[in-house]
């Protein structure tokens, strides 16, 4: 056990899995010699050689399409997309091939691969560098989608993702890459995919948040606790498949729910969670499920970023709205 931030924890997971299994192989723009623009793959090329940590040409569809080809032949590629905003050129490969191959060949072929990428806003990054379009991925059949919110989860989830026999998209909230340090176990401590984490217990309302928004939800919960209101926080960790039971159970208990996410509201994952609660918990609701989210606009450039991202103020407003309904 050691204190680590998320970058270090992901790096550790990669190193451990590469040591464990020679079929695990990294590829992406600048992942090798440079160790990634966020240093997530630092030292791995030095350790495992240029053939296991490949600096690719600048082409995302190429990265994902080649990783897919590798996976077809039994390797376990871990591809990095430099920022989520540059995933889109590869989206066709994901929806048309990566997510389909097992089903369309009835299991003759499969794609045991991971696609990692920094995700979300909040670091005053340039245009296109703050995307959080996880809902596109959650809507895509045949893939799993994971978003850690802490170093230990990041390590444990990534190890599970790499070992998973199916393709996993792994979204890393870069805003908290170095913001949180915690004890991270070593060895065979895995975090299962598809299982939510109850970050905080409480009986008055449920906050559902993932990625960097978990920390914001925690701040809101503390603030509310000061007012005698106990919020439960559920972090789904895997958004596909989603641990519906954990969310539904919590909201059945509290009767009130605020979903917090960075992405645009319309057809975001908040809509899905609201719809699930509609279907599975309607009679337990004391107020409409509230979405505190990014707007249906382009993410503003750094000077306007704070208008866009859900923050303490907006989460508290959402909480008040469901509490006072």
């Amino acid at each position, binding site marked *: 056990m050691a204190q680590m931030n998320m970058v270090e924890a992901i790096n550790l997971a990669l190193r451990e899995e590469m040591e464990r299994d020679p079929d695990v192989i990294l590829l992406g723009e600048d992942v090798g010699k440079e160790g990634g623009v966020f240093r997530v793959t630092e030292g791995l090329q030095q350790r495992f050689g240029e053939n296991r940590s490949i600096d690719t040409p600048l082409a995302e569809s190429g990265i994902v399409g080649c990783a897919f080809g590798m996976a077809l032949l039994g390797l376990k590629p871990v591809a990095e997309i430099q920022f989520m905003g540059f995933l889109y050129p590869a989206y066709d490969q994901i929806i048309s091939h990566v997510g389909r191959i097992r089903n369309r060949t009835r299991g003759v072929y499969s794609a045991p691969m991971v696609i990692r990428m920094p995700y979300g806003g909040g670091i005053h990054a340039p245009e296109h560098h703050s995307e959080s379009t996880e809902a596109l991925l959650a809507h895509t059949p045949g893939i799993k989608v994971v978003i850690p919110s802490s170093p230990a989860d990041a390590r444990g989830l990534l190890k599970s993702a790499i070992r998973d026999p199916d393709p996993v998209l792994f979204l890393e909230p870069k805003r908290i890459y170095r913001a949180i340090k915690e004890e991270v176990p070593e060895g065979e401590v895995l975090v299962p995919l598809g299982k939510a984490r109850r970050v905080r217990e409480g009986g008055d309302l449920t906050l559902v948040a993932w990625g960097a928004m978990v920390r914001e939800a925690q701040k809101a919960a503390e603030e509310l606790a000061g007012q005698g209101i106990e919020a439960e926080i559920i972090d789904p960790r895997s958004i596909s498949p989603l641990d519906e039971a954990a969310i539904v159970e919590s909201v059945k208990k509290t009767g009130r729910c605020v979903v917090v996410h960075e992405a645009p509201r319309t057809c975001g994952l908040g809509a899905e969670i609201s719809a699930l609660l509609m279907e599975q918990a309607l009679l*337990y609701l004391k107020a409409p499920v509230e979405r505190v989210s990014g707007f249906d606009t382009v993410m503003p450039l750094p000077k306007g970023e704070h208008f866009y991202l859900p923050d303490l103020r907006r989460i508290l407003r959402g909480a008040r709205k469901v509490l*006072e309904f």
Partner: protein
Amino acid sequence: PAEAEPEAPVAVLPADRKLAEELGVDLVGVKPSGPRGRITAEDIRAAAGAGEARTEAPRE
């Protein structure tokens, strides 16, 4: 609901709507005391307690 006149929509939480159903309370007659004109569980229980009188209560 086949033959019924289109009722004016009544605002009530789904759970309370179920409660009214169970208690046999016609929501159309219940006077709302909740926020923004919403019928509450208490309103429904009160209406149920009031027995036969409930259906004749005036509408807002």
